[in-house]
Structures are given as structure tokens and as C-alpha cells.
């Protein structure tokens, strides 16, 4: 039984055809109600994810970045259906998740996740072989074949099955454990792999090894990655497209190089300027952004970023920006798939720097 060659499929294949996004997220919302006073429900809620729309294209790596608390991990857990969304829907390869065509169980077989804490995500009482074989046996693969698949995957992720299959998680190093977690996630032969800070806890040299392993596996198994991280350099290295989140909303989304070289949103610009540089002459002297993100229990009205934005205008507190591409007049190199939620890009938004309304422009 060869797990690799069977699972390796052309990333463009699948029911919906290559142009159909693998995963479409529409209006995803998750509010966490705060414990209320004695008797009676409280009205206050943490707006962890507050209206997020995006697509994950087949075969790509979509990076998600943002400060801690911006809703990255909540988004990942919502996509896995580990927590239920307050609103919004997921469409996986043209089929609504949870519908009769794609029941949750079947969806979960196709979407898997690697967690940040490599130790906490392995059952300390199970051998790593048993941990990897658990998923397939839940989905009806006979015990023997599940174990065989587990050993095969261990070899794929660079761990000699003869030496490692019978070991327990505490006998492995952090990097080895994360390889096991990747193998466990791949055991169900998923099409989409969500990597929630999967390499953040590893030291730098091990991190590089695991990133290379992920790149190889993506090729071999025809995977699509959703790569969540706070490390901008890593995200830039691995991602085809990047999505920037701020306080539960998408601030900017676009092709990786375009986004990092010509940020459209002031928040993204501040983030890219905060990236440490290898060049001692280009060191960051002044903090590009000050203060903490506002409280997600009571997020600011209008644009979420206006409390910390250098270009803030009166309109920012009144009007909620939508994702718009940069007008060609402002940025000739603008691409239609590079969009940001900023009033400065919206024609006629009332922001002094915004382009004129279309009617006036004509």
C-alpha cells in the first residue's frame, strides 16, 4: 500500500474543476459571549471573527498573518468546525459544508490541521504509530492497513518507522513531534491542510527543515495549504497569497510579493516595516505602529484600524471599508486580486485621500 502515489493528485482536479476555489469562506462570524451577571444573559461578546470572506485556491498556499488576538486561530478552528460559527458558510469545492452533499465527517476527512503545540497535540499514552493510525481507523480503514499507512507516512516525513513507530511522544524532540503531527494530519489523505502556527514553536534550523518538508509534501500529495503565522518572513517565504487580519476582519489580501512590496492598507504597511531586516543600515528605528489593538469586546466603529492609523480622517470612524483593489490611477501596477479594506482606496468614500467617485471621474 503506497500512501503517496495514491493520494498524489493534480491540484487542479476535483469536482469543481481547477478554477473552482477549494474553499470559499463567506461572511464568517464568531462572537464569544462573555459570562453574564448572575441570572440573565450578558450582551457583551468578544468579536473574535467578525465577517470574514476569502477563497483558498486549489494548490496554493494562503498565508494568514496578524497580531495575536486578531482572530487567526479562531478562523482556523472555525474552518475545521472545531467551534461552530455564529454566522457564515463554508463551501468546499463547490459543496456547502454540512449539507447532504458534503456531511461534516466527510469534510473533515478532506481538511486536516496541524496545531502549534507539538506535544499537546499528541496523546501521551499512545505510540506515535497508534496516534497516526487513529484517524484512518475512525474512517473504517482496517487496523492493519491503518498501521501500515502510519509507518509509510512516518518514512515520508523523515522518521524511520522501524525506530520511531513504537515510541511515545515524550521520547521525541519538538521537530520530530511536529513531523509526527504532520504525518497524522496526512493520514486521512486530506486535500487542504491548515497549519496553525505549525512551525512557530520550533527553533530556527528545525523550522527550516520542517518548512522544506512541507514544501515537498505539498508537491507530492497535491496539497493546498492554509498557513497561519505571526512570523512575516516565514509567511512571505511559503505563501503564494497572503491575507492580513486585524481585529477579526480582513485588512488586506493579495499575492504575496505584491502585498509585501506595495502594501495597500496602512496596517499592512506598518507590519512590513516592523519586519526585522538583515541589513544593519536598514534597521527599524521608529516604531511603525504604536499602542495595542483595541478591545475586541467593543471594537471601534467604521474602520477597525482607525484608532491607530496615521492617515485617519473623519470618515474612518463612520464608514466601514470593504475590500477594494487599488484604483489604476493611484497605483498603475495594481492587480485586481490584490485588495484592501481601506477608505483611501474606495472612490467617493469621504476620505480626503480617496479617489474621486466614479461619476465625477468620468
Amino acid at each position, binding site marked *: 500500500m503506497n500512501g503517496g502515489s495514491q493520494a498524489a493528485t493534480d491540484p487542479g482536479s476535483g469536482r469543481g474543476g481547477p478554477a473552482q476555489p477549494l474553499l470559499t469562506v463567506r461572511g464568517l462570524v464568531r462572537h464569544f459571549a462573555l459570562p453574564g451577571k448572575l441570572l440573565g444573559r450578558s450582551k457583551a461578546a468578544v468579536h473574535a471573527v467578525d465577517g470574514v470572506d476569502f477563497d483558498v485556491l486549489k494548490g496554493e498556499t494562503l498565508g494568514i498573518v496578524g497580531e495575536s488576538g486578531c482572530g487567526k486561530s479562531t478562523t482556523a478552528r472555525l474552518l475545521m468546525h472545531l467551534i461552530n460559527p455564529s454566522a457564515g458558510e463554508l463551501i468546499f469545492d463547490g459543496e456547502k459544508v454540512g449539507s447532504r452533499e458534503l456531511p461534516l465527517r466527510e469534510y473533515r476527512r478532506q481538511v486536516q490541521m496541524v496545531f502549534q503545540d507539538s506535544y499537546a*497535540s499528541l496523546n501521551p*499514552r499512545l505510540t506515535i504509530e497508534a*496516534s497516526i493510525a487513529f484517524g484512518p481507523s475512525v474512517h473504517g480503514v482496517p487496523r492493519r492497513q491503518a498501521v501500515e499507512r502510519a509507518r509509510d507516512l512516518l518514512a515520508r516525513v523523515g522518521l524511520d518507522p522501524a525506530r520511531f513507530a513504537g515510541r511515545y511522544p515524550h521520547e521525541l524532540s519538538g521537530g520530530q513531534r511536529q513531523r509526527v503531527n504532520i504525518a497524522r494530519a496526512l493520514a486521512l489523505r486530506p486535500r487542504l491542510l491548515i497549519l496553525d502556527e505549525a512551525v512557530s514553536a520550533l527553533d530556527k534550523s528545525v523550522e527550516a527543515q520542517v518548512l522544506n518538508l512541507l514544501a515537498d509534501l505539498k508537491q507530492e500529495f497535491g496539497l493546498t495549504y492554509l498557513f497561519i503565522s505571526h512570523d512575516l518572513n516565514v509567511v512571505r517565504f511559503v505563501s503564494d497569497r497572503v491575507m492580513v487580519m486585524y481585529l477579526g476582519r480582513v485588512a488586506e489580501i493579495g499575492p504575496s510579493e505584491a502585498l509585501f512590496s506595495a502594501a495597500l492598507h496602512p496596517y499592512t504597511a506598518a507590519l512590513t516595516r516592523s519586519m526585522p531586516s538583515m541589513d544593519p543600515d536598514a534597521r527599524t528605528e521608529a516604531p511603525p505602529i504604536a499602542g495595542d489593538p483595541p478591545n475586541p469586546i467593543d471594537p471601534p466603529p467604521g474602520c477597525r484600524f482607525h484608532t491607530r492609523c496615521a492617515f485617519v480622517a473623519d470618515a474612518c470612524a463612520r464608514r466601514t471599508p470593504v475590500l477594494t483593489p487599488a484604483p489604476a490611477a493611484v497605483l498603475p501596477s495594481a492587480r485586481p486580486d490584490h485588495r484592501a479594506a481601506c477608505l483611501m482606496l474606495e472612490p467617493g468614500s469621504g476620505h480626503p485621500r480617496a479617489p474621486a467617485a466614479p461619476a465625477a471621474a468620468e
Partner: protein
Amino acid sequence: MVMQLPLTRPAAPVFERSEGYWSSVFRRLRRDRVAVAALAVILAIVAVALLADYVAPADPYRGATLRRLRPIGTAGFPLGTDELGRDMLSRLIHGARWSLLMGVTPVLVAFVLGSAAGILAGFAGGRINTVIMRSVDVLYAFPSVLLAVALSGALGAGLGNALLSLTIVFVPPIVRVAEAVTTQVRGRDYVEAARASGAGAFTIVRVHVLGNVLGPIFVYATGLVSVSMILASGLSFLGLGVRPPEPEWGLMLNTLRTAIYVNPWVAALPGVMIFVTSIAFNLFSDGLRSAMDVKR
């Protein structure tokens, strides 16, 4: 000169097996001298209790008014005689049966019931958790001694009722421990990962929760055995548990207390046995706890 390297075909992979969790616990437990000694005492008492008919030198029920309250070391009666002239050694040996029964049975039954309820509450969470935990809290409101006495009193004296009331006393604390440990385990990423792989609640509990939860609950329960023995002795002392002429340690302590000024050493013997047995259970439980507590 060309050295010929021994080129052998690699042998078929030999799969290494790591030491399992329980064998590593056992290895650490064996190195803990106090725990080993405590276990030896427990095993000795269990063995004596099982073989009481063969080990006891005399009939524990046959008394003689002429040789009442003989001191320790009397010829033929190594530990003296009680207030009815019965052989103390034989009575203590036969009493081990009763005391172990009263100590272990309620805890064992409460362990099964309490674990089930606690794991259910911890894993289900939400409303089910609230219902189970708040009902348990009702029982928690009473001090355990008082509750045991009150229940036994209400149910009527007798061995069965004493066991039942002790079981009821021990269910709430075990439920609490089970619930706390399960809630903790439920939040771990490996349970999330198991949910993400599409496993049902029952499978997750069986594969991922039980193995990580039963150990700590069991350790806690072993610690309760000594409490149960002491409470059982207390019930018997009050006449609510085992009835005379049965040689239960608590009951013996009760009947001998009138002789405390006549022959204090003999009168103290059942108390010593209760003390030794319960401390052995406590020390063993402590050893088990540290052997199982692997912060890795």
C-alpha cells in the same frame, strides 16, 4: 590493497518497542522504598485476611470468662484476650476481612460510579455538566462523617446499609476529581485533533480520554480507602455497621474501650491495626501518584 567491506543485505526492519507507560510507572514505583513497603504491608494484610481460617491460632468467637483481658504475651494468647476472653490475635486476623471489605468495597463501587458520572460531566460540558455537578454539590454540603452516620442511621444498622452509605459518601469527591481531570484533558489539542479527524464522542473518550483520566482518579481513590476504613470503624463503633460478635476492628475498639484502664495495650490493638492499614494505603497512594506524575 582493496579492503572488502562486509556487504550484507540489511536485515528486515526490527520494530523497536518503547517501554509502555504502565511499565515505566511500575519501574519508578519499584524504586520508591516507602511505596514498596506500604504495598508489602497491604499485601500481607490481604493475605492474612484471605487465609484467616488457616492462620488464626484459635476460634475468634469462643470466649472463656476465666481468662478475660489477659495482657499481651500471655502463653497461648500472644496478643492477650478481649473482654470476653477471646483470643485477640485470631480476632484481629479475622477482623482484617471485615475491615478490608468495609474499606475497599465502597471506594471501588464509588470509583466506578463516580468516574462514569465525572467523565460524562467533564466531557459533555454545558448543561449536563451543571446538572451532574450541582447534584453532587448537594451531597458535598454535609461533612462526610455526618453524612455516613446519617445515611446509615436512616437506612438502619447492618453491613449492607453501612456499605451503601459509605459508597454514597465517596461518590461526590470522586465525581469532582473525575470531572476536573476530564475537563482538563478535553481541552488538549490531541482531543481537538481527534475531533478534527471525525471521530465520535464515544471513540474519543475510549481512546483518548480514559487512558489519561483513569490513572489520576484511581490514585485519588486509593487514598480514600483509608478514610473508608476509618469511617467504617466509626460506624461499627456507633453500632451502625458490623454487629457483635463479628470481629471488626472498629467494633472491637468500641467494646474494648471500657477496658482501657485495665489493659490499655490490648484495648489499643484494633486501633493500631486501623492505623497501620490506612497509613499503608495512604503511602502507597502517594507513591503511585508520584510514579504516575510524569511531567514530560
